[in-house]
């Protein structure tokens, strides 16, 4: 079975393909798939035996039928082309989760940032300052809850509250 290690190319580039997080398949000069990298197998479930020797047109049709958005670049030397892609569903799910988390954190952070800026630059009476400071504390707790519920999945024990030094 051919892997990226078997590709006829400089060792430096071969190592990059093997370690590359993008799925990569190489098409040889004869027009058939000649190698894939580990990320390709990880994302598609296809091993070298599934695609090795497959004509480029059939290979493309198989990827396209799986909904994999790929790019093709012309190669030189012993290779005809390189196909590369990010596995759409895996990354989209992760990206969406991270994006949702970022949006959830931005809301309380907006309050903390904004009220802090106003407290530092505007002259408010004592009652307003106390009210805004209480809002800061409240929004910090909201952020902490989001982190505990959505980000920290290790179920670690909550830290003990900071202890004040006896004076």
């Amino acid at each position, binding site marked *: 079975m051919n892997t990226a290690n078997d590709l006829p190319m400089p060792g430096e580039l071969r190592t990059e393909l093997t370690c590359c997080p993008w799925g990569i398949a190489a098409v040889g000069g004869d027009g058939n798939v000649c190698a894939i990298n580990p990320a390709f197998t990880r994302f598609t479930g296809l091993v070298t035996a599934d695609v090795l020797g497959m004509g480029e047109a059939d290979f493309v049709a198989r990827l396209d039928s799986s909904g994999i958005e790929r790019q093709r670049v012309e190669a030189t030397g012993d290779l005809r082309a390189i196909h590369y892609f990010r596995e759409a569903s895996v990354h989209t799910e992760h990206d969406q989760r991270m*994006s949702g988390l*970022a*949006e*959830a954190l*931005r*809301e309380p*952070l*907006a*309050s*903390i*940032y*904004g*009220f802090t*800026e*106003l407290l530092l*630059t*505007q002259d408010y009476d004592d009652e307003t300052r106390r009210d805004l400071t209480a*809002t800061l504390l409240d*929004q910090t707790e909201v952020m902490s809850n989001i982190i505990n519920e959505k980000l920290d999945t290790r179920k670690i024990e909550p830290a003990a509250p900071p202890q004040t030094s006896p004076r």
Partner: protein
Amino acid sequence: MKKILIVDDQPNIRKLIHLALRDHFALEEAGDADSALERLMVARPDGLVLDVTMPGSIDGFQLCERIKRDPRLAEIHIVLVTACGQVSDQELGRALGADAYFIKPFSPLALARHLTTALLPATEDAAG
């Protein structure tokens, strides 16, 4: 006095924006895009500070599009203030006709400066 409608489902954000703008504008508030649309027809504000992700039948992007497509409302200066921080979100906002895009967390003073520059005569100072 120029009038601005603040639309955000988070009371804290409405309060923050209210504090930043209250010295320069007459302010109204709405907690979702549906009630904002009703208020727009009555209050006819000069500016709109609009969140994107809110409960209701339409979101901030959809409200922005409706306003800019309505000749009676199209002149309203719309500032999207949102936690939707991706480049594609900003591009969508611009494509729908938003005049400015602030990503949370944002500087309320910068928002005030933007709106005073956009809506008030040059002789009036920006907040902060």
